[in-house]
């Protein structure tokens, strides 16, 4: 039980995928201008990540390994992720057309989110079982969501503030992200034992 809790702490805080591992920076910068968009993107990515890590684990264990075609891992995972993202797109379109409109182009771009592929490959690398893989994916998604929401809130306040012209927009956002990243270094060592 403790291992699962520590696994969550590790993926959400200590080894946060965005601020510590520096994966998934594309939607992090692109969808964080408004809080609603960021929340929507976070939810969509959570859905995708959990499904993707589950299905990639299954594909790896029951197709790739038995057939001894591990060299196809990257391609196969990308195929899985693309399919899952497509499926998610359809679900989002049906359940919340507004969110679909709001996310726009960034929804299919989750396919190229290196965090998703990263989670899938890391699962295999670390040799997790099925439940651990799903938990790992879910934890990564939670960490990603938390950082997205925090960053979007900060960016909204930055947009309204007196930022010097040369820093307005992307520069001040990246500086803020850097400072957040330094802050997250403070969590180092929390997951001792893993």
């Amino acid at each position: 039980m403790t291992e699962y809790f520590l696994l969550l702490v590790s993926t959400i805080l200590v080894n946060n995928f965005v601020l510590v591992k520096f994966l998934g920076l594309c939607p992090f910068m692109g969808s964080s201008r408004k809080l609603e968009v960021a929340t929507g993107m976070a939810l969509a990515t959570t859905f995708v990540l959990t499904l993707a890590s589950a299905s990639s684990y299954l594909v790896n264990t029951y197709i790739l390994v038995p057939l001894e075609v591990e060299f196809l891992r990257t391609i196969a995972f990308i195929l899985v992720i693309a399919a899952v993202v497509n499926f998610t797109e359809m679900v989002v379109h049906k359940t919340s057309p507004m969110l679909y409109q709001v996310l726009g182009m960034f929804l299919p771009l989750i396919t190229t989110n290196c965090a998703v592929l990263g989670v899938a490959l890391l699962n295999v690398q670390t040799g997790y079982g099925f439940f651990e893989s799903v938990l790992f994916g879910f934890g990564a998604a939670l960490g990603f969501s938390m950082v997205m929401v925090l960053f979007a809130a900060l960016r909204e306040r930055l947009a309204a503030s007196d930022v010097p012209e040369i820093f307005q927009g992307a520069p001040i956002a990246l500086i803020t992200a850097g400072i957040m990243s330094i802050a997250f270094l403070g969590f180092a060592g929390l997951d001792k034992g893993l």
Partner: protein
Amino acid sequence: MISAIIALALLAAFFGLVLGFSAIIFKVEASPVVEQIDKLLPQTQCAQCTYAGCRPYAEAIAEGEAEINMCPPGGQQTIQAIADLLDVEALPLAGGEEAQEEPGPILAIIDEQTCIGCTLCIQACPVDAILGAAKQMHTVIAAECTGCELCVEPCPVDCIDMVGVEENIKTWKWPKPVNHINHPLPLGNFELISEKTAGSF
């Protein structure tokens, strides 16, 4: 080698089937982004964007044929709103210095002494804001006029003028305060603006 191809092919087939089924199950009617863009446009139907009206321009934007910065009556605000809706970059108003936003609301006014009752302006008005009939006096309904200037051209006796709408206490808006240490006022103008400050103990 063969097993690799078979594996990939099977995977692709499986996911293809899954996606195909979900496409049918989760089918959605095309969402009318054209409606949403049209809602943001100012509806002057003036054709300054080179399209026949606001709706055709909205359709062109939705199809990606037109840029979002071609509407002078909408101004930078409309461009920003469309940019936010479509999640694209907000460009500055096209045309540079010439196509700046109009200085204020303008209305068409018909000089009744000169009007000959030819109905050409009535046919030109895109919102039916001109009242009149053949050989009868024509007049612009001020409340309906959008200031698109399409009626000025067709008039054979040139009796239509565009006049600025005077500000009155109902349309007056509070100005944005600029009395800030980073934007020092020229000396002497100090009192003029700060006359309006409240809480000025």
